[in-house]
């Protein structure tokens, strides 16, 4: 069951991402992006990261997609208006370079340099503590400083967004 689920989700997320970069209408682009991200959330569940999967769905479909759609509709990006491409010759080299990048990354993965020390949190142990409890415990012990920095970052982002987007008074 699990291998099939992986292949189906991987294939749909790749296809949705391809649609994202070739689709002309930005509203559909946002929806394809979210479709791809939900497939990735299913892969997180397969990787026993249930909390991350839930956060992925909440943050990306609940917050970021709505934000994108709001901006697209606010700016009324015209769908019918043919976007004139000033650099049409850039498309083919971009795809070739993207493929080269993929090949280089594939060779790196194949070279088996990704060996690491095994950690202590095996599936059984995570299961016994509870995944979300474990993340909560780590956030308030080992990762307390980054966690507090994150709150400052979000605060600064909110203020920055308001100042950037507000009209001159």
């Amino acid at each position, binding site marked *: 069951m699990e291998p099939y689920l992986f292949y189906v989700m991987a294939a749909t997320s790749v296809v949705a*991402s391809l649609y994202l970069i070739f689709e002309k209408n930005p509203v559909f682009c946002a929806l394809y992006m979210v479709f791809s991200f939900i497939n990735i959330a299913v892969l997180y569940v397969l990787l026993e990261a249930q909390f991350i999967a839930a956060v992925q769905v909440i943050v990306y479909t609940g917050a970021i997609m709505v934000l994108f759609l709001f901006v697209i509709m606010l700016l009324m990006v015209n769908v019918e208006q043919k976007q004139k491409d000033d650099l049409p010759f850039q498309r083919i080299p971009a795809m070739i370079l993207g493929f080269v990048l993929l090949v280089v990354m594939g060779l790196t993965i194949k070279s088996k340099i990704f060996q690491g020390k095994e950690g202590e949190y095996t599936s059984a142990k995570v299961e016994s503590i509870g995944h979300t409890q474990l993340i909560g415990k780590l956030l308030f012990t080992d990762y307390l400083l980054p966690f507090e920095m994150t709150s400052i970052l979000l605060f600064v982002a909110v203020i*920055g967004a308001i100042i950037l987007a507000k009209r001159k008074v």
Partner: protein
Amino acid sequence: MITLTHYLVLSAILFSIGVVGVLIRRDAIVIFMCIELMLNAVNLSFVAFAHFLHSMEGQMFVFFSMTVAAAEATVGLAIIIAMFRNKDTVNVDNMNIMKW
């Protein structure tokens, strides 16, 4: 059996698609979506490493990188709105006043 390599290859494919999208699109909003796609590809490899190495560090990093992605989306879309106010377009080819 699905191994770490499968997840890393998928992550590499998604990342490359994001890179190509940034290079071929002219619409600032879609370029932004492609950047989000690249961030997600990297998050996927983080979670895969965390799972196969029995560690929690990868998942903590994903948690923080999602926060950064949310903050980045907010500020970036605000910049796009400011850009649209000044130029009446979101096409990145028209944003060339800093070019020599």
